[in-house]
């Protein structure tokens, strides 16, 4: 019995191994799209390949037929921080790099700041397209693996917001130092006998607790899990005339609706959240691109694209809104790319792409 079982197992293993070996050799669907010559010389194969590419969605690289870049782009990793606006920027950049430069881009989901910096230092990703923390990357830059690549064109501003109806009914609520006067309005089951102060999700830059402490505000900071929870709060607050005080940031498609009002604190005097006193508001920040030294010194056209990349808050909001309304990031990015050939062309200057 032992022998026959072994024989049967052997048979099974042999077939399995054969299948994998077969898979490893031979070109098939892949080779049709792996080089631009193949695509050019075999139109049928190229059509098949691009159909395949679009079917596979973001996981697949488009054939580089339209973009015979002078220097091969190579394999690069983009950190994907977890908010819709970031996703919009990163996806547009990724699609341009794939389609116009033939780059192979891997997107990796990472929390912002030190998690992403560590990953860059370890070489698993090469780019953060939108970083909010003024200079918090200094240690990593000093060690040499990471570089600042300048502003990405977006201007970021975090803050606390209330639904618009509140600002209309209680005009002085937009001055944060008056918040204690209205703390009762914000009481919920979650916050008990204090007002509810909804903070951003765990991975975000927040100083709400510091502000509450510094001003002795009668509020309890509640950390919500998601961007969506904040939007739900505000939507409901405006619709049902409920009080809500929540963390938001520009650029954000939801703020573009103009249904919220900002609660202001004295003008900002800090750039590193670690050193914030809590007495002053969040700063207006040029959102920065950070890249690995490896990428920037590689001579890859992707490095040039990253250097050129800039767009406005309105640009980002339009793509983010499409994602929000149900488009996949790839579809939303494609729509923007098709509608903005000039901006894309400007980014491609010096990359060698046609």
């Amino acid at each position, binding site marked *: 019995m032992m022998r026959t079982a072994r024989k049967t197992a052997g048979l099974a293993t042999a077939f399995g191994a054969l299948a994998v070996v077969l898979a490893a050799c031979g070109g098939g669907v892949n080779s049709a799209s792996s080089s631009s010559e193949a695509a050019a010389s075999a139109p049928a194969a190229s059509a098949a390949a691009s159909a395949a590419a679009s079917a596979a969605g973001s996981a697949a690289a488009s054939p580089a037929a339209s973009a015979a870049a002078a220097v091969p782009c190579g394999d690069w990793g983009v950190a994907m921080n977890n908010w819709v606006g970031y996703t919009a920027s990163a996806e547009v950049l990724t699609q341009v790099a794939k389609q116009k430069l033939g780059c192979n881009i891997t997107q990796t989901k990472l929390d912002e700041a030190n*998690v992403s910096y560590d990953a860059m230092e370890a070489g698993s990703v090469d780019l953060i397209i939108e970083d909010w923390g003024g200079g918090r990357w200094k240690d990593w830059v000093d060690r040499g693996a990471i570089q600042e690549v300048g502003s990405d064109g977006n201007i970021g501003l975090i803050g606390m917001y209330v639904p618009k109806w509140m600002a209309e009914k209680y005009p002085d609520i937009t001055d944060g130092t008056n918040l204690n006067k209205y703390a009762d309005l914000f009481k919920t089951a979650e916050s008990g006998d204090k007002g509810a102060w909804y903070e951003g999700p765990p991975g975000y830059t927040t100083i709400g607790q*510091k502000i509450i402490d510094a001003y002795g505000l009668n509020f309890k900071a509640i950390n919500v899990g998601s961007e969506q929870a904040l939007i739900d709060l505000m939507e409901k607050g405006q619709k049902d005339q409920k009080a809500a005080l929540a963390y938001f940031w520009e650029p954000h498609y939801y703020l573009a609706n103009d249904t919220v009002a900002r609660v202001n604190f004295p003008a900002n005097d800090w750039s590193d959240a670690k050193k914030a006193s809590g007495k002053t508001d969040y700063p207006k920040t040029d959102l920065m691109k950070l890249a690995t030294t490896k990428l920037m010194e590689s001579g890859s056209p992707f490095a040039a694209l990253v250097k050129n990349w800039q767009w406005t808050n309105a640009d980002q909001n339009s793509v983010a809104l499409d994602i929000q309304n149900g488009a996949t990031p790839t579809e939303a990015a494609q729509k923007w790319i098709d509608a903005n050939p000039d901006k894309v062309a400007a980014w491609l200057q010096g990359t060698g792409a046609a």
Partner: protein
Amino acid sequence: MSSVESFLRRRWVLLVILFAVWALLAYLFKGHDTLELSTMENTPVTQWLNDAIDSIRANRSTSPVFLYVFNPIRVVVENFIQLIRAVISLPQGANVIPMVGWLGSLAIVGYIVYATSTLRTSLLSMGLLLACGMLGMWMFTLDTLAMTLGAVVLSLLIGLPLGIWAGINDRVMAFMRPLLDLAQILPTLVYLAPLVLAFLIGIAAATIATMIYSIPICIRITAHAIRNLRAGPLEAAESMGSTKWQILRKVQLPMARRTIILGVNQTTMAALSFVVIAALIGAPGLGSPVVDALMIRNVGKGVTAGLAVVLLAVMLDRATTAAVIRTENIDDSSTARRRRRIGLAVGGALTIVAVILSRYVLWAAVFPQSLDFGKGIAAFADTVIGWITETFDFFTEGFNEWFTVTMLNPLESLLTQTPWWITIIMISLLAVIIGGRGAAAISVVLLGLVVVIGLWNDTMVTLAQVLMATAVTMIIGVILGVMAGRSERVERILKPILDAGQTLPAFVYLVPVLALFGPTRFAAIVCGVFYAAPVVVRIVADGVRGVPTEMVEAATSAGSTPTQVITKVQLPASKRSLLLGANQGLIFVLAVIVIGAYVGAGGLGYLVIAGLSKPDLQGKGLAAGLAIVLLGVVMDRIAHASANRSGPGGH
């Protein structure tokens, strides 16, 4: 009997007095010595941890520990997983598909299942995998499959030898037992941060975290398999003068084979149930759309991904269970053997054809869009959940608020607003009454440590939620457990639900629960109850069924109503099972409540998750992980001691 009863009554009296004193002291000293600490603030201990982590980070590329231990492990594990992914899930370079297209992967999976079990299971497995593809999750599913497969292989490589060793050597077993016990009560969330520190966020850390979760299960079952063999054949082999090695190879391993394969099944299920949590530290696969759904609006996609996890869990469970069954009844007649060999040859040929097709023909290479119903299903899930939230808001909002205000808030304020030293004294008195001096001593020491770390207040926030969720779990567990224990019909109806509940990763229902209840502690409690209830129902049902029939019949013939039979006979007689159930319930609930920080539950879990991403909270996050472990051990010891004290009744 009567002496036991009077003893019990005395204990109840003591407990009532204790809680009355507790409430009075809480009222008198409310707000003093609460050790409240704002989120961004550090204590000396957490600050020290912070600095330690900073220096570890700065030395990552120079310290020998990293150069010669962590980094090589990271590279090896990562490459191993990437190799599997390259075959089935990850397109290389500018390629459109991985080495094998979807049809080929499907065929290979089908063939492997066929070779290890039966044709029926193989067809079922392929059907389930196909269904994952139809949910629009093909790539994610195969990524998860690759991760799970890789983690299981590595876990078995380590777990099987260790399990065998612990099986044949008492000293090794004695050394491992406390570690295995600890692993069982360690909430999964807590080892993420230390692993990230050593291996960085990414595939390696995610795989190793999965392994830490599944290896103890493998060791436990393997050792158990070898230890519990019938003595006869062993003694026979010994008397024939076989060496230990011979006995192991020729007698023990073959005899233990069935249980060991069962261990493989459990190891696989554990690894799979970790996928979603692993996504928090960079694992590719189905976990990432689930986590996405929590962070960005995408309830529909999160639900579809969750559904795919469930299908994959059913598939892996069935496939490995079928393999266990096959080891038992192999039909060894020559016709059956011939038929099987023909089957394997034909199946192999078909698989090879499928693999070749999947490399050369488009429809077999990339999962066809015409088969992808993911968007429709996601939209449908969105609509359903939207409808439920709108229609049942008296429950989703009303009950939620009622529960929070009348039950949770008072308990939380009792625990968080009372001076820490009163709470510790009261908890240890409670431990003395229901558990014993040993449990009380452990409680004082470990809770004292929590105070030293400086996370007392957050620990109490978490404790309040855990106690609340456990109470609800026990109510549900006892009701359903008694019903299932008394009626086979109810048991048959409940069984598939309980099975599903136990294979579902906790994160999967976080998405719909968050959609229904918003970012509240109540949502976290609901998740905890979902996760823990099946186990408690099982244990209670077992206990009730174990009550001797004579006792029940005697009570019935004496004219007791069914309610009286339950309350006077069946429940008291299965008291030990109830306490064991409470113990398991507490541990299961704790594991999920800390994850509930993701949906706004706050407490220790929030600090752990925030510590993963906020530089100035990294030390505090690590300390919070430690506090969770301490809390878990305290609850486990008290519950355990009280179960032991109640004696071996019922079970």
